[in-house]
């Protein structure tokens, strides 16, 4: 889609195409979300949430690790401040993703799109948006959100209500959908760019070590992700600075 965005309205056929692409790419994300949020709903139920509250939490927060940590605290009757701090830490990677997205926005885009796009920055939706060439089209993100967000919210509600009715075999299969999508974002980039290929292999190795080494394995998955992202991206940026600003993606 090399077409240049002229007007940020849905009257533009280019935006309509982007919206449809977003919906298409949002479907596998929704499937993965459904499985994950279903198990998240079980955690919500243990924290005393009703199905509606589970729906609300997922609809508003859109965060797997962040919500999970939040429900654990709620179950323990934690203080409000504590909940705020832990939510901030477990979601800190979205701060980085939001920074990265800010660099890929058209300066002429009306400002309200920034507020709307920010609402649903998740690992997956960020991944597929950033993988597209050129400036980010907000309608691509909206299309993807339209398919994925309801799955996330309803999945949580259903998890609260139905507990563990879904056969384990299906949960098991659904749960890798997310990782398949991650791979579909990073592997093509690795094929084009040797630096990224080497970097990704280092990431897999470092992440594997961090998950099983005593010092790191005690940390939450979210904290490990932030630490590794900071360290490895800094190393890559120092060793292999990008030439010129253009053509990233």
């Amino acid at each position, binding site marked *: 889609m090399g077409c240049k965005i002229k007007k940020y309205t849905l009257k533009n056929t280019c935006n309509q195409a982007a919206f449809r692409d977003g919906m*298409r*790419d949002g479907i*596998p*994300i929704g*499937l993965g979300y459904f499985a994950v949020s279903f198990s998240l709903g079980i955690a919500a139920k243990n924290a005393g949430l009703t199905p509606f*509250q589970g729906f609300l939490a997922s609809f*508003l*927060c859109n*965060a797997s690790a962040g919500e999970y940590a*939040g429900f654990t605290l*709620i179950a323990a009757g*934690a203080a*409000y401040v504590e909940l*705020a701090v832990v*939510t*901030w830490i477990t*979601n800190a*990677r*979205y*701060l*980085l*993703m*939001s*920074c990265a997205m*800010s*660099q890929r*926005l058209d300066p002429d885009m009306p400002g309200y799109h920034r507020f709307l796009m*920010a*609402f649903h920055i998740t*690992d997956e939706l960020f*991944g597929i948006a950033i993988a597209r060439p050129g400036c980010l089209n907000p309608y691509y993100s909206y299309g993807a959100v339209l398919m994925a967000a309801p799955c996330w919210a309803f999945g949580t509600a259903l998890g609260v209500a139905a507990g563990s009715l879904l056969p384990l075999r299906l949960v*098991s*299969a659904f*749960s*890798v*959908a997310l*990782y*398949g999508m*991650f*791979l*579909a*974002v*990073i*592997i*093509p980039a690795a094929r084009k760019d040797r630096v*990224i290929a080497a*970097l*990704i292999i280092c*990431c897999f190795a470092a*992440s594997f070590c961090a*998950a099983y080494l005593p010092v790191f394995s005690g940390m939450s998955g979210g904290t490990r*992700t932030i630490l590794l*992202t900071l360290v490895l*991206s*800094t190393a*890559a*940026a120092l060793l292999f*600075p*990008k030439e010129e*600003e253009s053509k990233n993606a």
Partner: protein
Amino acid sequence: MPDMYIYLFIMAGVSYLIRVLPMTLIRKPIKNKFIQSFLYYVPYVTLAVMTFPAVIEATQSPVSGLIAFAVGVLAAWLGADLFRTAVFCCAAVLAAELFL
């Protein structure tokens, strides 16, 4: 007794702030070469770190997770799009766990 809706409001508020602040405050292209490179690498690093070894722990058996990982890498390398890669991975787990 803390109120559930205040809990949810706090979670939602913090989750949104963290996402909306950079996007709305950073209006200009960042010129610094280090920061540019850093932000360029961030998505790939984050996604790679979150994929492995989490994928082997997501399934009922680590072996089927590993198979899904291999299938996903291969499919994406050969040019499958997001949806197809995801479906291949799910199918690999379903198939593998019939035998495990």
